[in-house]
């Protein structure tokens, strides 16, 4: 079959005689395949980039750009923010939009890589003239994209905790999440004061966003006299962490502090459990682990019982009742079934990216209305006055309430599901921490709060 007999050239002759038609078929097949793949990619990109604009407001649409990872190891972040963005912009559009303009959300995939983020953001501005607000900008890409967005004079609400933004002032940069330094302190405070663990192991991913927790956590652990028994950096592109798990188990920690997104924590924790003969080691996660996607992947790997019994995370205090929370809940749940989701949908109600970006977009939209301008340089100062409040300001919990109060000539203070904001000179509004757990079905349960004195003692 494979070794030709003497004089056997029939195959070659047949091949020559049919060469043209076969070539045509091949070319057609190649073009079809390429077209299908390219179109698939385009559809996927535009699918997530579709502006969710309602017809109600008559003005030209304004774009809220969700600049975050949609692919790569932190791929869960961008879609979480997009759920919140779609939810709040729908609510704003139903209330008439911003000065008659509808808002729509557009996803910009940074792949969680600063090098990929820069061209993605430049392309955003080159192709989208009506960008009024940027959200997302996680620690993965903030250092590279914040200067660009700031230079474009576009307001941004970022989800980065990087401490450099408390030192360098970018006038258009705002954030409603605490610096990673404070988050690491809060993790240590949970171990010290709430669970009384003594032996701590650190296992953080090797991405920028996760690594920023390590140094402050190590310092805080030493400060309060706990033992750091292991400190491993997990390669998020690795396929297994068995040796890393063996090292952790051999160190006999009471608790593991972790943030390794993508599939890493799921694989790592399941291998730790396996190495520890099926016995789970308790985990304290960062607020990034309060996420439906993280819960879904990790609970599948280690079991929901592990997470409901042996997992805690620090998270900013967010409201769980009242008019602001109810409006937020309504908006988020209007997205149920319309967005891809894994895990328990109610987790979005506690996910920092969902809560704080909902507030950020509302703050920016109300600032535009009060400033009577959608130009960022004009409306930016109003974010501070609406967020921090001013004497005699009326408290509003939704965009619609805010617009109504402004029409009556009132000053307003917006308090959303993330609670009252308090912007400082660097536009940081750090907030206070609570301890979250997962319930048996993946719902988030508040297990306690971290007091200011506890937090201060570990600094």
């Amino acid at each position, binding site marked *: 079959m494979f*070794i030709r007999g003497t004089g056997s050239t029939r195959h070659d002759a047949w091949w020559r005689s049919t060469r043209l038609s076969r070539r045509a078929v091949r070319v057609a097949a190649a073009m079809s395949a390429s077209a299908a793949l390219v179109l698939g990619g385009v559809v996927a990109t535009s699918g997530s980039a579709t502006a969710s604009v309602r017809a109600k407001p008559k003005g030209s649409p304004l774009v809220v750009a969700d600049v975050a990872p949609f692919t790569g190891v932190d791929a869960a972040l961008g879609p979480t923010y997009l759920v919140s963005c779609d939810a709040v912009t729908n609510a704003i559009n139903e209330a008439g939009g911003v000065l008659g303009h509808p808002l729509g959300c557009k996803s910009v995939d940074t792949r969680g890589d600063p090098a990929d983020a820069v061209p993605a953001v430049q392309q955003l501005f080159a192709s989208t003239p009506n960008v009024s607000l940027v959200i997302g900008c996680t620690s993965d890409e903030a250092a590279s994209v914040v200067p660009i967005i700031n230079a474009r004079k576009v307001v941004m609400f970022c989800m980065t905790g990087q401490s450099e933004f408390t030192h360098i002032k970018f006038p258009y940069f705002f954030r409603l999440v605490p610096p990673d330094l404070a988050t690491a302190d809060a993790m240590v405070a949970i171990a010290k004061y709430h669970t009384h663990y003594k032996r701590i192991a650190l296992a953080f991913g090797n991405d920028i966003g996760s690594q920023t927790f390590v140094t402050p956590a190590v310092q805080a652990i030493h400060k309060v006299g706990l033992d750091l028994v292991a400190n491993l950096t997990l390669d998020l592109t690795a*396929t297994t962490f068995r040796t890393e798990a*063996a090292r952790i188990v051999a160190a006999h920690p009471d608790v593991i502090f972790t943030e390794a997104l993508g599939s890493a924590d799921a694989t790592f924790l399941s291998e730790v459990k396996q190495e520890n003969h099926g016995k789970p080691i308790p985990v304290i996660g960062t607020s990034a682990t309060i996420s439906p996607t993280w819960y879904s992947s990790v609970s599948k790997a280690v079991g929901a019982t592990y997470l409901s019994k042996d997992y805690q995370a620090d998270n900013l205090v967010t409201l769980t009742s009242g008019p602001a929370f109810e409006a937020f809940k309504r908006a988020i749940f209007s997205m149920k079934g319309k967005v891809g989701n894994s895990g328990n949908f109610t987790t979005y109600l506690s996910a920092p990216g969902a809560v704080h970006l909902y507030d950020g977009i509302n703050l920016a939209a109300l600032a535009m209305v009060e400033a009577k301008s959608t130009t960022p340089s004009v409306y930016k100062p109003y974010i501070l006055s609406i967020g921090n409040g001013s004497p005699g300001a009326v408290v509003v919990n939704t965009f619609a309430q805010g617009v109504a109060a402004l029409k009556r000539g009132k000053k307003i203070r917006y308090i959303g599901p993330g609670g009252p904001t308090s912007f400082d000179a660097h536009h940081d509004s750090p907030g206070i921490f609570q301890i979250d757990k997962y319930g048996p079905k993946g719902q988030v349960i508040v297990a306690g709060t971290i007091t200011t004195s506890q937090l201060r003692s570990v600094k």
Partner: protein
Amino acid sequence: MSVFVASLAFGVISASVLAIASIGFTLQFAVTNVLNLAYAAVMTASAYVAYEVNQAGVVVWVSALVGAAVGATMSYLLNRVVYTPFQRRKASPITLVIVSLGMTLIIEFGTQAFVGGTNVSYTMANGPTLGVGSFVFTGAELGIVAVAVATMVAVHVLIRYTRLGKAMRAAAANRDLARVCGIRTARVVTVTWILSGAVCGLAGVVFGMNAGSFGATSTDIFVVLILAAVFLGGPGEPYGAMVGALVIGLGTEVSAAFIQPDYKDVIAFVILLVMLVARPTGLLGART
């Protein structure tokens, strides 16, 4: 149990996954003369199809056969639709490498367009365990090692004792001479693409099983490890790929027991560089 002993055992499992992938890759390269960097992307695409089959209720080991079939089909199409036209136009080897890089992106992001950016996991039981000394292997891990051994034996039998294997070796050594000797080299090349593609698809599923979960871009770094194993053993040398995979698998896992584990892939390349300085043609490559 010491971490060192555990890392040795883990190294064997990692080496098994790497060995399956490396054997297919080097077989493909030896006979077809194409350094197909899209190999890892085909692995991932095959793993995804197997995942869909697995989610439909099919046992993961049966799904692996589906993955192998998908890998074979994709590799066949890749050769017929993409590489062969370039080769017919006398494209240089470096051009083909660039084309394969392009195909990597097309397949990888094409897969991502269909399945999304999040990771998936096979539904599978770890099965019974087996204690070897102080280390306990799970059933799934033993299965992976068994598949690797079976693949290596199958490739050995193929290239040593079959007519096709002889033809493949002849085509790999000198394609023009083989053709003159009456070997249907075009057909041998096509069959090699199919067989190595099947091994590639199988490697994709085993990779997904071993990793616990995988995404469309999960094999981005793994292809570099495949290259390291292949070139360490000697490019185009199936036995070399087996040895290379073992060295790289053990090297990365054992090093992770002593240094920051995110540097373990760096160790693989330190081993490769040191080896290539001492023996440029690889461990089992022909002496120059």
